[in-house]
């Protein structure tokens, strides 16, 4: 019996979301008196044994060039085999693009109930109840999974990474790789940026910045903080910023520790994408901007004057001159 955690990789490295999933899965395994095991697909350059520090006892790897690119059907097949092999009772994914693609398929294949967007460890004292985010971050649902095998996909930044001592056993798993039915014609990776979905700090700009030429104050602050940048819908719709930076109801949903909103009024559709952020700072010259109602800290003032001063103060705090 095991809790099996799918560890996502990108370009040969395990992703941060997966450390959260591993920490979550390890704690869950402890609560269920079983062992936490990870599965890694494709060729990875990281030292997998060191993933033991998140509480994983064993890492199963399936090394095959065909697994370096993502394919939900192929991945589902391999993970299903690993689940049988390890007698997995719970399978944990990150609720990211890949997780959203594989978990539903695996749910059907293993007849395993799925809860996506989990924000907390399941209650296992009486049944198996997982708390998940619903209504685009405006509420939570406690969902009972009734099947013998359960699948959980964990929201980004919802569970704190916990590191301890420990070395995982690494073992190669022999699985036949099925033929993919989807041909990948082109892959464009965004490199050199902090991926928005997993960023802990995010600085975001809105229409109040008046034009793409003024984005320097946003990127300067982000750089000083070590934050990712994002924007509101009108900004990406006007092509001031690339569309993958758009957060909100129709864009990306994020939940960083700190969300800095500059010149964004805070329409409800925007809030739906960011309201799970732990701390929200709003800088807006309009004191009536609805965003202040959802904020933890706010400054009513001209962003062009205030933000560079915040950047200076951050640099001072961090000892960057």
């Amino acid at each position, binding site marked *: 019996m095991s809790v099996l955690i799918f560890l996502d990789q990108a370009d040969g490295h395990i992703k941060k979301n997966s450390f959260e999933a591993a920490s979550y899965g390890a704690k869950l395994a402890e609560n269920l008196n079983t062992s936490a095991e990870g599965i890694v697909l494709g060729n990875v350059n990281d030292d997998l044994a060191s993933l033991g520090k998140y509480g994983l006892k064993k890492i199963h790897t399936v090394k095959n060039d065909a697994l370096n690119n993502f394919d939900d059907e192929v991945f589902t097949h391999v993970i299903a085999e690993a689940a049988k092999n390890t007698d997995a009772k719970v399978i944990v994914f990150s609720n990211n693009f890949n997780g959203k693609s594989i978990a539903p398929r695996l749910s059907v294949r293993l007849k395993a109930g799925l809860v996506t*967007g989990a924000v907390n460890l399941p209650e296992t004292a009486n049944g198996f109840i997982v708390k998940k985010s619903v209504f685009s971050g405006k509420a939570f649902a406690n969902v009972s999974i009734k099947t013998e095998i359960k699948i959980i996909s964990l929201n980004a930044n919802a569970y704190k990474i916990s590191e301890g001592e420990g070395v995982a056993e690494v073992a190669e798993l022999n699985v036949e790789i099925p033929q993919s039915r989807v041909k990948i014609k082109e892959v464009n990776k965004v490199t050199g940026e902090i991926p928005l979905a997993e960023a802990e700090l995010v600085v975001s700009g809105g229409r109040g910045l008046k034009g793409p030429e003024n984005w320097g104050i946003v990127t300067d602050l982000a750089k000083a*903080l070590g934050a990712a940048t994002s924007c509101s819908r009108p900004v990406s719709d006007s092509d001031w910023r690339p569309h993958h930076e758009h957060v909100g109801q129709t864009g990306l949903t994020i939940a960083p520790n700190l969300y800095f909103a500059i010149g964004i009024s805070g329409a409800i559709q925007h809030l739906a994408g960011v309201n799970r952020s732990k701390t929200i700072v709003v800088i807006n010259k309009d004191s009536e901007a609805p965003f202040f*109602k959802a904020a933890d800290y706010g400054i009513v003032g001209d962003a062009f004057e205030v933000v560079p001063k915040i950047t200076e103060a951050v640099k001072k705090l961090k000892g960057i001159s």
Partner: protein
Amino acid sequence: MKILVCISKTPDTTAKIAFTDNNTKFAETGVQFILNPYDEWYALVRAIELKEADPATVLHLINVGGAENDPIIRKALAIGGDEAIRVNSNSHDDFYIASQIAEVARQKNYDLIFTGKETIDYNGSSIGGMVAELLNLPFISLATKFSLEGNTATVEREIEGGEEVDVVNLPAVVSCQKGMAEQRIPNMRGIMSARTKPLKVVEPVQADTFTEIASFELPPAKAGVKLIPADQPEELVRLLHEEAKVI
């Protein structure tokens, strides 16, 4: 070409979220319902564009829900589509719903099934992948662009850390998001014709339910914003460091 678009009814994006019956049911009183934006703006409109490009295309809509969903289904038909099928069930279980859609799809042999990337109420993002698995079809999630040449689709999609262009032979299931198409407002002709388009109601087939919503809860209310004078940005940084402990 036969296309099926899966549509859902959701509360309006600005709806107040509250619960009744000891926090086990969404409080619907006074709430305005809409067609789930991802289903409407992206999946449905892109399917309509495909039909406009090839008028021989048959375009069906499917919804799993009760009779109270009919006005929303009619609204979808006003935007486009030849007919709608409603599977008469109020289940919230993703597997049960996907099983109903798969059953209808099995009988009608669609070449292409579109879903929105998720609904804005339960945020499950599971139906597309489940339907694909139930029908043993390829699934392309989170598509931002879709084009068709004969029986071969070229799809741009988001993956972890970037974008990818995939080529797949139909039949296939695709979940749609921003980029696929632009929102359309139904015109008067569409609204009139929607009244006479077939809306077939079928009873659900037997299927398992894997999950059940035990209760809902609202997040704790925010303490309220702490305003810092515009001439004291250092104070904001100090609070973020010492009080919120996020930097």
